[in-house]
């Protein structure tokens, strides 16, 4: 993961996310708690900001948000995820270039899908 312009959007998953899956599995790192049975499933609060974050107009663009995400991942102590940030920025640029000019992206989901993303 050194050349951020070397991963076209269609290969982002195969060349970046899938290897991360293998790497994290080898080290027994899990990003979702799926199978861990416990007496209680209550957990501490997750927040990047403590609940409220103030931004100025100059720091609210997509790239700035991705930088913030990288800082959050670093602060969380994750060694893999921060390396994704430049690639996410490149992917964002590619996707924005491919977007139809002036058109708001239509929701592609059917009515029977919960809008998770």
């Amino acid at each position, binding site marked *: 993961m050194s050349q951020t312009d070397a991963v076209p*959007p*269609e290969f*982002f*998953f195969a060349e970046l*996310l*899938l290897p*991360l*899956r293998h790497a*994290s599995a080898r080290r027994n790192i*899990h*990003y*979702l*708690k*799926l199978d861990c*049975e416990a*007496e*209680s*499933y*209550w*957990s*501490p*609060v*997750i*927040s*990047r*900001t403590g*609940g*409220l*974050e*103030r*931004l*100025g*107009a100059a720091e*609210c*663009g*997509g790239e700035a*948000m*991705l930088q913030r*995400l990288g800082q*959050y*991942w670093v602060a969380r102590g994750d060694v893999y*995820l921060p390396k994704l940030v430049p690639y*996410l920025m490149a*992917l*964002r640029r590619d*996707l*924005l270039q491919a*977007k139809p000019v002036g058109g*708001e*992206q239509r929701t*592609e*989901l*059917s*009515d*029977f*899908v*919960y*809008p*998770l*993303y």
Partner: protein
Amino acid sequence: MKTVIGVSALYHDSAAAAVVGSRIVAAAQEERFSRRKHDPRFPTAALAYCLDTVGGVDNVDAIAFYEDPALSLSRVVENAIELAPATEAIWQAAARSLLGGKIDVMEKLAHAVGSRAAEDLFIVDHHMSHLGSAFYPSPFESAAVIIADGVGEWATTTIADGSGTAITPIEQIHYPHSLGLFYSAFTYHCGLKVNSGEYKLMGLAPYGEPRFVQVILDHLIDLRADGSFRLNVEYFGFLTSRVATSPRFEEIFGMKRREPESPLTIPYMDLAASAQAVIDEAMLRIAHRALTLTGRRQLCMAGGVALNCVTNGKLLRRLPELAGIWIQPAAGDAGGALGSALHVAHQHFGAPRQVNVGRGDGQEGSLLGPVYSQDDIERALHASGIVWHVMEDDESHVAHVAQALAEGKIVGRFDGRMEFGPRALGNRSILADARRPDGQSHINQRIKFRESWRPFAPVVLAEHAAEYFDLAHESPYMLVVADVRDEHRTPVDWSDFRSGDADMIKVLNQRRSTLPGITHVDYSARVQTVDEVRNPAFHRLLRHFFDITGCPVLINTSFNVRGEPIVCTPEDAVRCFLNTGIEVLAIGRCIAFKSEQSADLRATEGKVQYEPD
């Protein structure tokens, strides 16, 4: 005093809200303006309405967004990695959605408002926005607060303590373990639209028996005594696909997903009853936990699950330690706009919180949307070409409308500010006499063009509510289900239902109570109490109806047809009046009677094109 605009957008039910000092002055969902139900797009029109209400963008001090787009992206990336390679297809879609637009939402907000407000942009966590909407406008100085929904960034359930202007989140349940997503899976399997059909699933439940509860608890959800829970993700599809359930979901219940719009059969009714019973139990445990942890006796709630008014009614009846409950009327994502603005007002600008000032709570009766002048209304009526009358004064108008209701007419009422939240609370409502024996099927089929089995809600004078319903608390926002009192009930014959015909209409056509129009098949009713403080004009109408008939109860259903958002403008109201079997349009100080309209105009009745909802 500082002015804060809050915005929720891009997932579902986009909305904008405006807060001046600590007072909510405006709030509206984008769908009402765009006429696209649950519109998720950036709320351009709702934002314009809020900016107009506060006197323009130059008066705005800060803008709040209801969710952290970076943390939401984190969840999606981590989900994609954890379950790769099965997540490849949804990653492609998610990347387009998030990186190709949603991650830029704050910049879009800054451009939309421009000027100095863009220098004070705030991101408020999704559940913090819900917490703000649930606690700040409540009538309680302090309370336990519960948020339960599908998912925000990571949180799906949050317990918090609210006191004064402080809200302290205590603990959470995180994605993918979610009561909202759990209930949506059953909605999907029963062939209903996710994120709108949940409401129908709740109404379907009383036709069934909860015979799948143990299967659900054994296989789908590990529900702990402390209210925490974990979903068995093998039964759900949303982690790796675009659908809510996995093939194992069908296998465990032994039934395929119901084809949308196909006849409803007993197994799906039983499934609805079972999902409802599990949600009831989970929320009871969570509420008990919240009250215990915080030491409070008052409870506030928001999040989509808080719109389950059957559960809300059970909390009131089954938790002896609960002294009072307040639920944000716009409990879904639209309310996040309001909560985020309030949070910035209190936490950043230090606005003091005024509890119980003015209108029973700080929600202003949830009458926070646009209002149209008598001139606007008359212009719309002129343009429509319909025959109409203007009354001399409000008293005369109320008398005519109450008389029409007493004569059994179906009335579309358009008056004052539009409601914020999914329920019509009288100002954009279709009203009818609840004693009318055919009320439920008649309005469903001829007015709303929706399924005959769906129940209607009663609106009752608050001072008479206890005579008709087992309800010890007020329910001003129609968010609590209570039973019709024993003395008003009549027996229902279910003898052929489960053994053979499963004929919902046959059950429905039985009288059930002295108020058949609003009594569901299990004698429950989703009650709205109306009082003089929150909505004096609507209270006056009910009072007048009571004076004529001796009955303080009306059917109250939203002023729209199936698949359409509730009407917003006078033009919307006239269109709905002409397209449906509504017999009287009461709009501002004007009245129009269907019987007086020309044959050409009357010919449009019933020709409405609706989308299945």
